[in-house]
């Protein structure tokens, strides 16, 4: 697999959304070029994301998995943003909360659960990393770590590699608003801007970094206000509106692909659940605030939009939800039953050449 990563991006990959670049068929909203087929595909991913999210929480609460990071509330931002990319040629640095992104790109609920259970078949890490540390070489989803913002310089470098090879790929790089305080944000965005590298920096501003609210994080209202500091466009968008997010990101992708350099987009949204299964959010925010945001649930809003557009009705929605629920049940079971990595796995893949890991006879222990 590692061999492949350098090949020009002509591999046969197809995300759950398909890779169609078709024009709008007129049935979408006036404000979007998304076809109804794509809109419905996005809706399916959103329903699936929600179901996977809730299942992971449940599994954690049952003690079946060690850890989960909920994305509830941020699905529209994620799915809208990634829909603007072309899985066949673009590259992806999704941050941990981006379940909606990776499911859009062809990861499956089972993949997410395999990581949760720490199974050998976990495509992100063979059970080595905590869940939500995405990686899928075949989809150009580049391996992620826990230290926040480190992916921002990586994304800049990947974009420069595409430039150098004359490819027309664009890089998706997401992060939370808190992570924009890290030095790596500044260094990565600045370098990308200087080189006019094809990246879209996508900030999911969910108003908290664990317990820290944005006003303790930065003295600006919007992370998009940081864009002019790098001489690049910035845009703030309603991250609970999937179509609006798509449109904003699409403009940025088009700019990048045209050689005009990076854009910084902030999607304003909210994390409905605690930061993670290890967090207790009761002492840092009010129940009222959460309830207020819950009213703007992006899934509900997308459903209403599709119904309004005549693309969805109650029956079709029920059927889709049942289908997804079944898929998620099956995926849970399959993942749980998959084998864990054995001890013989432990020392593999430190280096390409496994002959010397240091220590006695190079055995590394």
């Amino acid at each position, binding site marked *: 697999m590692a061999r492949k990563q350098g090949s020009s991006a002509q591999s046969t990959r197809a995300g759950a959304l398909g890779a169609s670049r078709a024009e709008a068929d007129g049935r979408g909203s006036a404000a979007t070029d998304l076809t109804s087929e794509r809109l419905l595909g996005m809706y399916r991913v959103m329903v699936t994301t929600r179901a996977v999210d809730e299942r992971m929480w449940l599994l954690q609460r049952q003690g079946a998995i060690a*850890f989960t990071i909920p994305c509830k509330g941020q699905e529209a931002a994620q799915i809208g943003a990634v829909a603007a990319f072309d899985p066949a040629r673009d590259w992806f640095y999704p941050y941990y909360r981006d379940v909606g992104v990776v499911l859009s790109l062809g990861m499956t609920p089972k993949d997410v659960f395999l990581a949760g259970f720490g199974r050998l078949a976990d495509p992100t890490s063979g059970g080595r990393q905590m869940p939500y*540390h995405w990686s899928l070489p075949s989809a150009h989803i580049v391996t992620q770590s826990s230290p926040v913002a480190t992916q921002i310089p990586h994304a800049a470098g990947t974009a420069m590699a595409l430039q150098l090879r004359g490819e027309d790929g664009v890089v998706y790089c997401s992060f939370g608003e808190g992570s924009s305080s*890290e030095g790596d944000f500044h260094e990565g965005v600045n370098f990308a801007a200087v080189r006019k590298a094809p990246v879209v920096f996508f900030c999911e501003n969910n108003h908290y970094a664990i*317990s820290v609210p944005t006003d303790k*994080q930065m003295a600006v209202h919007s992370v998009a206000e940081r864009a002019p500091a790098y001489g690049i466009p910035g845009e703030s968008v309603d991250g609970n509106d999937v179509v609006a997010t798509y449109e904003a990101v699409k403009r940025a992708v088009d700019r990048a692909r045209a050689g005009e350099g990076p854009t910084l987009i902030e999607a304003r949204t909210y994390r409905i659940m605690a930061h993670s299964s290890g967090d207790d959010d009761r*002492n840092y925010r009010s129940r009222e605030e959460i309830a207020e945001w819950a009213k703007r649930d992006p899934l509900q809003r997308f459903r209403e939009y599709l119904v309004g557009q005549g693309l969805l009705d109650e029956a079709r929605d029920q059927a889709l939800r049942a289908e997804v629920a079944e898929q998620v049940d099956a995926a849970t079971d399959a993942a749980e039953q998959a084998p864990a990595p054995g001890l013989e796995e*432990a020392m593999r893949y430190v280096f390409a050449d496994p002959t010397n890991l240091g220590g006695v006879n190079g055995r590394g222990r």
Partner: protein
Amino acid sequence: MAVNASAATATKPKSNLEAVREAMREEMARDPRVILMGEDVGVRGGVFQASAGLFDQFGGKRVIDTPLAESVIVGAAIGAAVAGLRPIAEIQFADFIAPAMDQIINEAARIRYRSYNGWSCPMVIRAPFGGGVHGGLYHSQSVEAIFAHVPGLKVVAPSTPADMKGLLKAAIRDDDPVIFFEHKAIYGGPREIIPEGDHVVPIGKAAVKRPGEHVTVIAYGMMLHRALQAAEQLAAEGVSVEVLDLRTLRPLDHDAILATARKTGRVCIVYEDNKALGVGAEVAAMIAEEALFDLDAPIVRVAGPEVPGMPYAAALEEWFMPSVEGIAEALRKLAAF
């Protein structure tokens, strides 16, 4: 006085987490120059609850929720320290200390020396470290060896509640920068009764946590507890094991290390970090340089493997860390040597 508050509960065994919290609370009450800063240390009380209650007690000027940026957490603490405060900077997980490395090793460690005593940098950097919590590669790291290599720093890693409290108080009062590592998997236990009053434990001194005659095991952090359990096993087999808790990793307690090596002539060093250039390498080298002819057996190290991090999958996580059984086996072999 904070001492009263602690005296009231002094007879109850406390956890390492409570020890950390008590040390900070008492020192903040004692000295208005002490402040705490870090991610989520304020309203949230820290992700491990180490600072629970401190924000309410001391206010947002002294218990500061910082932006998510480790280099400025340490860097601003340095700037506050040179201006006369005594900051405690919390790094949420030791795994996330790397962005602050420049500030720690190029700035904090060198300020007194480079200014010929013109300035100093009295501050503590606290960081939960170590594995065993299903944290995978990035919530399990042991990073102490890097700092234990750096002159100008003191590095402390206590294993028991009394030491945890006493050493943290000593660290806060120290006139130089101290990196203070708390093993997160033993935050909750084993509990112990902490001596009443102003309990301060000096930096730089190891402690014999179990005296013995035949073999020595040297450890720190969670491994100290596994070493103690292994010693208990060997006692049942008639082997008397001395257990030395390093407690301070820089400067190492040269005399205590050589004394136990000379006493038993058989030394096993246990650490969770990967073996090559882990703290045990210096302990072994020190003994090989100064007590070689007192040894009756090779110096053995039981440590983590040379892989880039602790895996998440439960079996592999356990595989990574030295086990009680593995330690006992090494001690058995040493005793029989």
